[in-house]
């Protein structure tokens, strides 16, 4: 871990450069910076325990540099790793500053090597697991379960997943409720017109339009406002049709309507 032989990275061989370029084309295929580091580490062709972290940091940084040159967009965590490796590199190269706090470059490098080795191990174990003899593929359970049924008892069951999903569904129902306007305090123009038309035949005298509001809509302020507005609009509509006349003595005086002679 302590070796400072970084000549490998400064004098990059043609083969290595090609390898790095192949990697770049594949950058989408990596599952994060650690995965990329692991792949890069293979080019050193040594056991992970003997890996030169410094050389690896160099490889990674030059990889990122190339990706930039090629204008390949890299996710932020790749750049965070690059910054960290640059920091690690300086720690490894510069003589330790006794006044400085924190872990030494060697400790940091050792931990990175540990992480790589651990990831590599898990990756191998995943492959080992998947290659095992598996139920339903290599070995089999009983194909038919015995049915000597005479008594039939029904029980109910549920899995933890069902339980959690039921709860999640309840608690997030509000988030997914389709948006609808709360309409029970709204009298639409159509409703007001439908109400006014049959009544207007009886309005021979001037009558306050407020007397045409539906029953129960006079008291609640929200409903009164809506009903007044739509009844007024409906009245205008009827005026336009020539069915009624409309008048208002002065500003804010009651608005009155009556049917026209031929209405």
């Amino acid at each position, binding site marked *: 871990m302590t070796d400072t032989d970084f000549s490998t990275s400064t004098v990059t061989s043609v083969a290595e450069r090609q390898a790095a370029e192949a990697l770049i084309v594949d950058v989408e295929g990596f599952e994060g910076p650690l995965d990329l580091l692991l792949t890069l580490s293979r080019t050193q062709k040594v056991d992970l325990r003997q890996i030169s972290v410094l050389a690896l940091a160099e490889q990674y940084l030059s990889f990122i540099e190339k990706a930039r040159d090629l204008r390949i967009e890299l996710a932020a965590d790749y750049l965070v790793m690059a910054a960290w490796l640059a920091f690690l590199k300086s720690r490894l190269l510069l003589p330790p500053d006794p006044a400085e706090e924190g872990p030494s470059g060697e400790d940091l490098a050792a931990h990175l090597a540990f992480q790589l080795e651990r990831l590599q191990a898990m990756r191998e174990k995943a492959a080992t697991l998947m290659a095992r*003899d598996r139920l*339903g593929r*290599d070995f*089999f*359970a*009983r*194909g*038919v*379960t*015995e*049915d*000597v*049924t*005479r*008594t*039939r*008892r*029904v*029980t*109910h*069951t*549920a*899995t*933890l*997943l*069902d*339980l*959690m*999903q*039921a*709860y*999640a*569904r*309840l*608690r*997030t*129902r509000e988030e*997914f409720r389709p948006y609808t306007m709360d309409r029970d305090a709204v009298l639409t123009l159509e409703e007001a017109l439908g109400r006014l038309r049959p009544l207007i035949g009886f309005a021979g005298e001037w009558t306050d339009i407020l007397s045409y509001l539906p029953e129960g809509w006079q008291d609640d302020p929200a409903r009164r406002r809506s009903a007044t507005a739509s009844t007024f609009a409906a009245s205008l509509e009827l005026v336009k049709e020539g069915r009624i006349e409309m008048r208002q003595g002065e500003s804010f005086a009651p608005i009155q309507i009556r049917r026209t002679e031929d209405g």
Partner: protein
Amino acid sequence: MADPGTGADPSQDETLFEAPPMAEQERMVEAVLFASADPVTVRDLAGRMPNGSDPATALEHLRRRYEGRGVRVVRVGEAWALRTAPDLGFLMQKETVEVRKLSRAAMETLAIIAYHQPVTRAEIEEIRGVSVSRGTIDQLIEMGWIRFGRRRATPGRPVTFIVTEAFLDHFGLESARDLPGLKELRAAGLLDNRPPPGEGSDDADAEDDDADQGGLFDAE
């Protein structure tokens, strides 16, 4: 795959002409009868086994081997199957229990009790937004998953409900506090916006849930 069990090397025998030894053929018939959902004909056996095999003879060996055992080789029409010995049928009565998935109403009620215990019926209704039928609570009590907790010290002193040991046992929980919270559910991807399977038409899916039954854990 590596270990053929009996030392005989079947991969050798599978070659064109030489059939595997009879003991090996018997093993094959045994495995096929065991794993098959339906009775298997001799012809079907021959089709599966290496060339030159003699499934009829292997079957006869197997039949004799199982004589007097807890399981028998029986003939079903033109085909063969393994069946439990009839005198042991009494052991199988537990097998006849029909397991159904909990209805959605019961599932939700149970979830609310688990997450909010002790909780009153009114509180459950408040969270679900609909009334909780008596049958739902009764069912959960009968299943042994919930029970009455102490009464709430509020006017009317309503009873509360809590989950039982049997509930924790069934769901593999140490305590109800181990239930993952909303944030964790979301983090685990259990809370994404897609509607839960079988949903779509309000509560009409209570029956559909049956169809989903084992599906959750089937490999697909």
